[in-house]
């Protein structure tokens, strides 16, 4: 076979292969044309290896500075936000709340308790600390952060959920915590759930772009330039003007058998932790099981067991528990937008009920 030497390696190639190799060697992509690999084109006259490295270092240094600047801009913007969820968080973290009554809980707290109604009925200032997608561990952490920055309340309304004893297995909507990772209580709680949260704290932009898919950074930049989102949080209360969705029917179809919620020892310890914090600070604690759609209640197979645990706490620590499992409207879908959450209409009715009961309770106290 007639063989030809490769110009580069001296290896023997057939003419056909040789030309194919050469063709491939200098082929360019349709998408991006590249400089030849031998580096013969050098428009900037970068002759020295050192100057090349220096230039690359400068470019990446500039990118790094950009990362830090952008991160600072977003964080600063979010911390300056006056409205919506971040506005509400900022009130808490800047110590501007100082309410007499606070509501602690998950989204079921956030969308169901209207502090304005509580204030009007009881005559005491109130604030809602409910956070979307949280379990007791994060709720307690946020409450501790609240105590760190605000005057302690005299009463805490702790909204109970069927999943109150389930611990967090992932951080829901992590971007909401990003501007406040300096807070010890929040950071420690988050680190327990996700040990890699340090990356969000120390690596610029990591928390906003890697961990978040809601473009929270866009809101941060908007807020940095003075644009705050429309107000939808009122003293921490986030009413939902929604009608009943078909989520529950789909959930039922997906779970033809009953569902159960874990009772994790760590979850029980989190509730205990909240009780101890309140006890230590001389805060009156009230457990409230807010309304839940009746059929969902019937779907929960271990509901009695979960309530037994709630009762153990109430008996042991003499905590009042207001159970709204038999709320008169708990089968009326016009008061709910899904099985776990009241819509704005339901929240208004429920807040009035709670406020009235609280007024009587405080008067009796």
């Amino acid at each position: 076979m007639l063989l030809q030497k490769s110009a580069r390696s001296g290896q023997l190639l057939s003419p056909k292969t040789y030309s194919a190799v050469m063709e491939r060697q200098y082929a360019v992509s349709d998408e991006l044309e590249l400089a030849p690999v031998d580096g013969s084109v050098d428009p900037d006259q970068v002759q020295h290896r050192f100057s090349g490295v220096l230039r690359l270092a400068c470019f990446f240094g500039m990118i790094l500075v950009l990362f830090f600047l952008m991160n600072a801009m977003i964080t600063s913007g979010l911390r300056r936000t006056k409205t919506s969820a971040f506005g509400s968080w900022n009130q808490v973290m800047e110590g501007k709340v100082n309410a007499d009554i606070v509501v602690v809980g998950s989204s079921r707290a956030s969308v169901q308790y209207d502090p304005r109604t509580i204030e009007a009925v009881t005559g005491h200032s109130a604030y809602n600390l409910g956070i979307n997608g949280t379990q007791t561990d994060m709720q307690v952490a946020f409450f501790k952060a609240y105590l760190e920055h605000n005057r302690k309340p005299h009463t805490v309304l702790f909204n109970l959920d069927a999943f109150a004893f389930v611990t967090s297995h992932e951080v829901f909507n992590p971007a909401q915590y990003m501007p406040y990772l300096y807070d010890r209580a929040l950071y420690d709680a988050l680190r327990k759930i996700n040990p890699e949260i340090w990356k969000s704290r120390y690596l610029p932009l990591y928390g906003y772009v890697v961990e978040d898919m809601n473009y929270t950074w866009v809101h941060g930049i908007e807020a940095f330039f003075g644009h705050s989102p429309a107000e939808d949080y009122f003293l921490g209360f986030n009413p939902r003007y929604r009608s009943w969705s078909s989520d529950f029917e789909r959930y039922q179809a997906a779970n033809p058998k009953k569902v159960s919620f874990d009772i994790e020892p760590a979850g029980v310890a989190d509730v205990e932790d909240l009780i101890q914090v309140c006890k230590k600070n001389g805060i009156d604690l009230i457990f409230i099981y807010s309304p839940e759609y009746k059929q969902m209640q019937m779907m929960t197979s271990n509901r009695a067991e979960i309530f037994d645990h709630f009762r153990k706490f109430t008996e042991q620590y003499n905590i009042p528990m207001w159970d709204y499992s038999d709320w008169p409207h708990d089968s009326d879908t016009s008061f709910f937008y899904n099985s776990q959450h009241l819509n704005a209409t339901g929240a208004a009715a429920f807040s009035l009920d709670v406020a009235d009961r609280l007024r009587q309770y405080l008067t009796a106290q």
Partner: protein
Amino acid sequence: MLFNSLQFAIFFPIVVGGYFLLSQRWRVPWLLAASCLFYMAFIPSYILILLVTILIDYFAGIYIERMEGHGRKTLLWVSILSTCTVLFIFKYYGFFVGSFVSVVQLLGWNLPRPVLSIILPIGLSFHTFQSLSYVIEVYRGNQRAERNFLVYATYVMFFPQLVAGPIERPQNLLHQFRDWHEFSYVNVTAGLKRMAWGFFKKLVVADRLALYVNDVYTYPRAYNGLQLTIATVFFAYQIYCDFSGYSDIAIGAAQVLGFRLMENFRTPYYSLSTSEFWRRWHISLSTWFKDYVYVPLGGSRVRKNRHIFNLLVTFGVSGLWHGANWTYVIWGLLNGFYLVFGWLTKEWRDRLFALFGLQEDTRIRKVIMLASTVVLTCFAWIVFRARNIGDAAYVFTHLGSGWNFHQIATEQFLLRQMPVAIASILVLEIGQLWGRAVSVPNLIQKLPLPARWTLYASLVMTVVMFGIYKKTQFIYFQF
């Protein structure tokens, strides 16, 4: 190790820095060590499988070169069969046994279904094929057997293209490990730009579209025709951006080190026929199958029926290469059918176009051909992406039904993602069209330094800010 991971962001500069600081003697061991580390970041013990393949083909290459007569051919087959056995055990054993048991059960015999749960080593098909091409080229006399084990091992394991190609040929890559690569600012920056473009395709386009596609194709029956159509179009972009993005990163990373890898994609969706599509899609694999399966079968220089057979076999095997599932085989055969149909009807179609006065170079004819190629390719992607044949049939039959413009979003892909998804596709298309018309890097090079850096920094920031970082692997890793 994923290219889109923090580990790689640390790993890569260290490897590059070390490579250029070391003397030639230590560069290959350095690259080999880096490649081992890169591979072992997935499942460390699987490097032993790779070692087995490397050892088999390393010694096979040397002995094939030394031997003469029939012994060479026997040794070639021993080498091919041994390498393919590893691939078969890890990739196809469960599939073939499962299919056999299903057939037997259909015949009424009660045969228990064997349970063998093996995780497929990442990129097994890629390095197996690269290894095979080496042995075959040595056998054909196009390549000298490599005596230096470290060089050969690095050729198989070179980390930029280890897990998803391009599947290199020894004539192109092997000698480059012996070449001295001087640090070149132009090469490094060109490589980095190529990597940035690859990251844009992967993180900004592919992984965002994947949110939609995964939702819809996991339970297609829960979605309406419009959502099925969007998911199918999105998948066409997703798989292209995922895989060509990987190739861009691989080629760019190699170029930073001074290596030249072969091109793997040439804007395949701008093809005017399926055969052209396959000349522009996953070029390193298409040419592999052409060189080592299609041509040895006789290629096109045979009788008509045999030619059809050759095409279908090549595409059927190519489908099976992609995965151990009948959907892949059908996908391959469907593409083979497109080619056969296109070849058989070419005259008839030419006459039809001529009837309407549409000569080959007319724009309308090109648009029709381009659109029909894209549609046919998308239909084929349905079979490729569906979990099973039943799902694929469902998607096919429901694409046009129940369109609801008020129900577009999915669970993971909220409507706020849609503008970014569409914008990213537009940027991609503009970038590609622009790249076809002019040499973009040369154009940018003419700008003053501040403008150039601003442009590059903007690209980096766009990728960083709009990327999706859900730790998603590249689609082709599974093959």
